[in-house]
């Protein structure tokens, strides 16, 4: 009988049970290995070393590029100036930082120096694991742009020094605008008509970021803030017509529906450099990408402030950037060294070098003036930061919830799931349930 060719010919021996068990075990081993890989998380260590050597720990998310170089450069400077002190730096990806910080805060074991994105400062300060800076020797709030101070304020105390700051503007392709005989937009009407006129073939007139995260709220903020809108009430006309502007540009095809998927970096930059977007809303952190593509300021591209609804009104952009915070754990010696470390970043020379490596803006007007001499491409952003607004001013630690309500509304309106007004009244009903934590 065995001579017949069976369709279900099998390769194994008659006692298939054994081979099956092995197979199951192999699968089990793979699953266990994957689970172990997924669960593994690195512990943190703190404390001072022995033999007269002191170690302070520092945590940030500057994994690559100029900001990574900047922190390493500063750590070297610091160690040179403080013999016997070692700075132990830990770098995690952007998305992991806040998770890690919250976990370590819950264990009362924050690093001595903690970098935080500015909208997260109130949350971490609320955990009680950060040390207020007000009583530290040499601390001052004078000489800074106002937004840089308010982003570090929580319940009347200062919890951080800004690392540097940034905000957003409109980058435009000079050749494309020149070919269409257009001038860069200064008003909404101009923005819309420019975007429409620049849309042809594979090229969209404008690209912005309407992704399902904070980035999209941040990109819409200049539009409603410049009209006096306030996150207290997002159903006001300022919000309605700002969101309507975005929806209209997507509807008439001047912006791709993919704005729902395009992050500020690298997606928007890629669209810009590939000439599939004639204008993008973005910030100075994309300068290294533009440099790498061989694009030069005032040659291939120009920058204008975010257009306002009517000509000549003041543009109010959100203030971006990260901050240095002082962890509450560690010995008194470590804390005082950590303070020296943070304070040292604020001297004019260090701030200027540090921010230039990072493609950020300094936060002291006196340093900014010097800075612009070497970098005219920063001019628009520098001007904007004078009137920039801290995102946590109204809702403090609850800003992320407000932002979530906003970006949900933005996405609902752009996908057409709901109208602009119903998306915003939905957001407003969420926001009215969110308490204002004093900022």
């Amino acid at each position, binding site marked *: 009988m065995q001579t017949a060719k069976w369709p279900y*010919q099998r390769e194994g021996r008659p006692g298939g049970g054994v081979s099956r068990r092995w197979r199951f075990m192999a*699968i089990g081993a793979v699953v266990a290995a994957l689970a172990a890989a997924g669960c593994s998380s690195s512990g943190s260590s703190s404390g001072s070393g022995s033999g007269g050597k002191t170690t302070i720990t520092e945590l940030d998310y500057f994994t690559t590029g100029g900001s990574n170089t900047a922190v390493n450069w500063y750590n070297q400077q610091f160690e040179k100036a403080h013999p016997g002190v070692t700075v132990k730096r830990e770098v995690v990806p952007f998305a992991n930082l806040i998770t890690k910080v919250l976990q370590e805060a819950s264990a009362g074991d924050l690093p001595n120096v903690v970098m935080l994105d500015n909208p997260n400062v109130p949350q971490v300060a609320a955990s009680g694991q950060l040390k207020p800076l007000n009583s530290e020797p040499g601390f001052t709030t004078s000489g800074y742009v106002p937004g840089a101070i308010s982003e570090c304020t929580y319940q009347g105390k200062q919890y951080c020094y800004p690392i540097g700051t940034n905000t957003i503007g409109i980058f435009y392709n000079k050749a494309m605008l020149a070919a269409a005989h257009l001038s860069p937009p200064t008003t909404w009407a101009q923005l819309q008509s420019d975007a429409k006129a620049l849309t042809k073939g594979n090229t969209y007139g404008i690209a912005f970021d309407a992704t399902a995260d904070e980035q999209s709220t941040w990109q819409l903020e200049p539009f409603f803030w410049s009209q006096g809108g306030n996150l207290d009430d997002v159903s006001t006309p300022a919000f309605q017509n700002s969101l309507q502007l975005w929806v209209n540009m997507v509807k008439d095809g001047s912006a791709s529906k993919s704005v729902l998927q395009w992050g500020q970096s690298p997606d928007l930059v890629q669209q810009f450099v590939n000439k599939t977007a004639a204008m993008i809303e973005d910030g100075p952190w994309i300068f290294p990408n533009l440099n790498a593509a061989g694009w030069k300021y005032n040659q291939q591209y120009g920058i204008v402030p975010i257009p306002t609804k009517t000509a000549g009104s003041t543009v109010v952009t959100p203030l971006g950037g990260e901050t240095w915070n002082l962890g509450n754990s560690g010995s008194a010696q470590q804390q005082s060294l950590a303070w020296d470390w943070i304070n040292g970043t604020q001297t004019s020379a260090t701030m200027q070098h540090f921010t230039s490596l990072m493609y950020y803006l300094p936060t002291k007007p006196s340093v900014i003036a010097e800075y612009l001499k070497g970098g005219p491409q920063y001019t628009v952003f520098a001007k904007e930061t004078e009137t920039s607004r801290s995102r946590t001013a109204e809702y403090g630690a609850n800003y992320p919830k407000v932002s979530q309500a906003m970006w*949900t509304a933005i996405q609902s309106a752009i996908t057409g799931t709901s109208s602009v007004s119903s998306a915003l009244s939905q957001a407003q009903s969420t926001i009215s349930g969110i308490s204002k934590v004093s900022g």
Partner: protein
Amino acid sequence: MARTAAPAQKAPGRRSQRPDRAIAEVSRASTWARWARLTFLVPAVLYVLFAFLIPIVYNLILSFEQTSPATISSLFAPFAGIANYKNALVQAVTQSAIIRTFTFTFLSLLFQFVIGFGLALLFNLNFPLRRVARSLVIIPWLLPLLITGFIFKFLFQTEAGAVNQILADMHLVSHPIGFLTSPGWAYLTVLIANVWIGIPFFAVLLYSALQDVPLELKEAAMLDGANAWQRLIRVTLPVIRPVIEVVFVLGFVFTIKVFDVVIGLTQGGPANSTEILAPWAYNLTFQQFEYGQGAAINTILLLIALFAAPVYIWLNRESLRRA
């Protein structure tokens, strides 16, 4: 006897007199052995404790507490009753996420089974390069899920996405489809990605089950005049039924808690159209800092997953009774 020598030295005087000596020493030795055995259990117990029990219990506690950023550094926060569950469940996003989680799981398992079983049957046949093809099928399983998410994001982009390009070249669509930007399509795209990831699991386990279907049974059925379809339905399927059930129960548990694919592909967007429970719990916890509500969603997720256990036992009641 070497084992009994050590304890016996402590009482050398009594050694030869007592007739029940051997029994006593054996029982003493087995006490030792029992302790030794327990010691070997310690790593496993510690692992279960720290990797499973403590997180689950802590999550449960957290879900009944009034949490805020101010409470994270203390182990306990004020009791909140069922407020977190209520606040989480009244949100429209949570409600739609629950329904979506179930439809997503159902559709995923359905397609994973149909395609996976088809592949298993295929590999059970003799054809050239069968082994190579069989190993290739496992690849989706070996890729980190986030990377799978990015690959699908790349393939399904509206502009310059490979899928849209192919559809346009075949003149099937005139405008690129917003696979990731239209709510309905985005759900489908995430589903396709998840089905693709799950197929190897079904294919590999079902294939190994097919290997164990006794040849004699199929031969007998063939002699009785059963055709290929009848042999599949009447012989093969009943024989591998226990494996199918196990695969479905495990697949259910794996799919109900899908997280990485959604985060990598859509982050739950656009407009929450791909939000399912696990990424939504993450969003509540780490983006909105509502730890309590995030924990409540996790508990709900855990209860749903635990529901699979009695179902599994019920399905296997026959074989369990026999055992």
